[in-house]
């Protein structure tokens, strides 16, 4: 991106969840379900002395994308780190269930999920975890009819049980700012020690889990600039392409072959991961 382009583009990362959803949908089609004025908030945070948010950090927006019915599920990374509580996760799972039901009735509703999340909201622990399992179920069901597209733009990135959800999507789009990984750096450091993972070493963290590396290793499909129009264009292109021949999570033989080429006796490097995974994963 040159200076002129930088000045002219609209950042996607700087948009809040509602504006991101609005940007992805065709102009004028945005309509929010269970909006903040309905005040469906977390029943669990208040009793722990934590302030709730009127939408529980989750935007469900219906409209059209490229003229086709769509639902955009925008996680608000600004509330509790985009973590999945009972309500916020149920908004995603319930929407995916209705989108799959639409398809069974002949309405080709598709879904985009904006992953900006640390995973389970630990203050709602087991209900968050259970609801994430329901999100997984919803993606696998809906994916049989229409592509489910995941976007992780940053700055939070996508972690925990929601990184598994990202791994189930038909297509994944990421920016340089975003990271994608199962375990957060602080948790790896806590569980495995600072020699295994130093949670303050940002270049190291991005070198493994940043979306540039994830794209190089075939774990993200589209590596895009922080440009709202470019991200919308990537989404439309993927929807037009239709469902992939096989999703990443279905490429069992391919990944097992690549893993057999890894030497687990030595610590991993980003270069080695790119060299092995960069060869691709056959079906």
């Amino acid at each position, binding site marked *: 991106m040159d200076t002129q382009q930088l000045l002219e583009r609209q950042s996607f990362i700087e948009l809040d969840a509602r504006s991101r959803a609005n940007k992805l949908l065709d102009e004028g089609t945005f309509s929010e*379900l*269970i909006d903040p004025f309905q005040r469906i908030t977390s029943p*669990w945070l208040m*009793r*722990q002395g934590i302030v709730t948010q009127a939408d529980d950090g989750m935007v469900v927006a219906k409209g059209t994308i490229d003229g086709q019915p769509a639902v955009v599920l925008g996680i608000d990374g600004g509330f509790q780190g985009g973590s999945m509580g*009972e*309500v916020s996760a*149920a*908004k995603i799972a*319930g929407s995916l*269930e209705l989108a799959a039901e639409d398809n069974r009735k002949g309405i080709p509703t598709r879904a985009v999920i904006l992953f900006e999340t*640390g995973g*389970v909201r*630990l*203050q709602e*622990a*087991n*209900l*968050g*975890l*259970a*609801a*994430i*399992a329901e999100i*997984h*179920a919803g993606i*696998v*069901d809906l994916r049989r009819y229409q592509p489910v597209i995941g976007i992780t733009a940053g700055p939070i990135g996508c972690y925990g*049980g929601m990184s*598994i959800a*990202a*791994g*189930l999507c038909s297509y994944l789009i990421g920016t340089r700012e975003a990271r*994608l*990984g*199962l*375990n*957060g750096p*602080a*948790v*790896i450091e*806590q569980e495995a020690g600072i020699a*295994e*993972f130093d949670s303050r070493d940002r270049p190291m963290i991005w070198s*493994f889990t940043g979306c540039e590396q*994830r794209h190089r*290793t075939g*774990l993200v499909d589209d590596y895009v600039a922080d440009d709202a129009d470019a991200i919308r264009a990537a989404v439309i292109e993927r929807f037009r392409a239709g469902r992939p021949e096989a*999703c*990443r*999570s279905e490429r*069992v*033989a391919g*990944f*097992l072959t690549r*893993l057999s080429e890894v030497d*687990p006796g030595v*610590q*991993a490097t980003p270069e080695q*991961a790119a060299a092995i995974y960069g060869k691709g994963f056959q079906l």
Partner: protein
Amino acid sequence: MSTQELSKRGAVWLDALTYSAPLQAGYPPSVRVADARLGDRPARFIAVVPDPDNPFPRARGGEVGLVEGWEVARAVREVVDADSKREEKRAIVAVIDVASQAYGRREEAYGIHQALAAAADAYASARLAGHPVIGLIVGRAMSGAFLAHGYQANRLIALADPKVMVHAMGKESAARVTLRSVADLEAFTARVPPMAYDIDNYASLGLLWKLLSVTNADAPTSADQTTVEKALQVAFDDIRNDPSRGLESRLGSEHRAASATVRRKLREQWR
């Protein structure tokens, strides 16, 4: 970690329920796969177990690591593929005692999230294809490991035992991430059911289909074994008689009232 005793529960229960059926060849020592019967019908049993010699050093204590995730996916998909043309789909039983997902640099480098997605995908796809999938929790069912191995089951059964535990994160890490002391965290777990670590509180969330009392969860007596076998068979029939292949049966508890409210309102406003 080396001082911690490795749990044998997954291996013990898999062996008991399959009457020591031979393990399927070609899987790593950490993934045990056995074909046996559930009543008079064929079924596949799968467990992830500790392997102190696991080539991946962060996956030696019964964690679900990179290889474990993809191998569980393979074990499940083998059954789905083999039965694809058959009317009668085999049952799949996930025997669950998983300490956690593997935490390590290698794991992140090679996309452990994708490995766990593969396992969750395989179980969910088996369920959607009509295979009765049952998750039997005999020990720990922790976090990402449980999401990968068991949480996609049509029905979840747990043993009522102090070492049976379901949670999103270990106490020390959960305290660190939520900026609380472990003592504060424990105080909240006593008042907030979804934060608790014990199986009785978990049962109050309505996610379990059955909680079973056994006399010895570490070394099941023949009566314990019969109790669990019967429950698995009843679960099998219950799944067969249920027209749904989804997870709706988990939504009934009063502690999940908000989950139900969100779904009702979404349906009202969906257009």
